[in-house]
């Protein structure tokens, strides 16, 4: 990251290759299409590039990337709410036009019953393997608040998995 701040293109490319897949997965965990996730990833990198001087050497880099990705995702979410009415009209118009449906991934389906905040905390903590402290930094909250969200998310997941049958998830296949 320091070399990227110093203008090293090889370091920038290495960072893009290393950080993009988890960020892409982070966007996909919010039930958005693959194309939208690609766009958000590109938008995130443009923002990361613009504010790369705000990273402080010695601090954990992963929460910094996720904090910016989260900002972009929240913006996208708000924008989509504002344009929801317009989109509904477009959907009505395009009902006859065939479109490739977005295939829900297994992780996405598993996290679907969780709230937005719970989903992002679980995605960072359990899927990407970040620590509680890193998740708290990325979400601008306290470690206690993250723990509480995880506890509630697990309670809900336990109910969901219990209702659908653990075998369905353990076998790795979705109906």
């Amino acid at each position, binding site marked *: 990251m320091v070399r990227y*701040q*110093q*203008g090293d*293109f090889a370091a*920038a*490319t290495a960072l*893009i*290759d290393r950080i*993009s*897949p988890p960020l*892409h*997965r982070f966007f*996909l965990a919010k039930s958005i299409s693959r194309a939208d996730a*690609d766009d958000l*990833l*590109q938008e995130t*990198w*443009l923002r990361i*590039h613009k*504010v*790369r*001087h*705000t*990273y*402080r*050497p010695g*601090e*954990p880099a992963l*929460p*910094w990337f*996720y*904090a*910016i990705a*989260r*900002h972009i995702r929240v*913006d996208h979410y708000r*924008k989509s709410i504002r344009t929801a009415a317009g989109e509904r009209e477009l959907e009505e118009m395009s009902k006859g036009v065939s479109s490739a449906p977005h295939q829900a*991934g*297994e*992780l996405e389906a*598993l996290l679907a019953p969780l709230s937005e905040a719970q989903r992002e905390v*679980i995605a960072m903590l*359990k*899927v990407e393997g970040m620590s509680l*402290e890193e998740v*708290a*930094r*990325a979400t*601008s*909250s*306290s470690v206690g608040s993250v723990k509480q969200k995880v506890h509630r998310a*697990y309670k809900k*997941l*336990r109910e969901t*998995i*219990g209702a659908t049958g*653990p075998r369905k*998830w*353990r076998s*790795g296949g979705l109906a």
Partner: protein
Amino acid sequence: MKDEEIDDILKKAAQAPQDLDPLVLERIGDSIKPSLCPVRPLPPVWLMAVGLVLVCAAVSLAGAARAGFFGAAKMNLLERSLVFPALGLLACLAAVGFVHQMIPASRLRVSPGAMLALSSVGLLAVFAHLFRDYHTDHFFSAGIACLLTGLLHAIPAGLLSWLMLRRGFAVNPASAGLVAGTLGGLAGVGMLELHCPNFQAAHILVWHTAVVPVSAALGALLGWELRFRARSDDR
């Protein structure tokens, strides 16, 4: 079902292939390459916080110098030694909080809302302890004049603070605006304590302290507005 079993299920689900198109990565690399140049990282947190406190102190002192140091002159030693250090301490906390708001993924020790509550309650406690004159002369006319004077100093202090940290990036501009407004509000209260000779408890508790939440609300609104503006600029 145990937590470990849910962990396993989550891990298994996350291992599903996520084919990120290499063309997307290539496009990202190409888009940042033309503007890739060395950048200077932000200065240390303490340095930026000291700068913010100095800016706020300068605004308070400049305002009081123009209007007169009647309040500070009327205060006794105990009042001076409690009111100004308390304001200084709260301003330091708010300055550090504001710096953290302008750096993504900073460790937040005090949330913006808690910072506002702490500042307001802290000031109320100090004022309630020190000022025991319970008369209320010209409560509204004198009070509104003080509130406006405080805000007239809080707004430039908050804006100068924002300007000072313009190289930072607020992932939540409304929260950052709230903290900047709290900091500006403390500068406004500082000016009022230096200038206002009205030591009636109700006047100080209501109108002087009100500068902080009103200024914080204005800061949050401005942050919210800036976010929308930045978004429309991006488009």
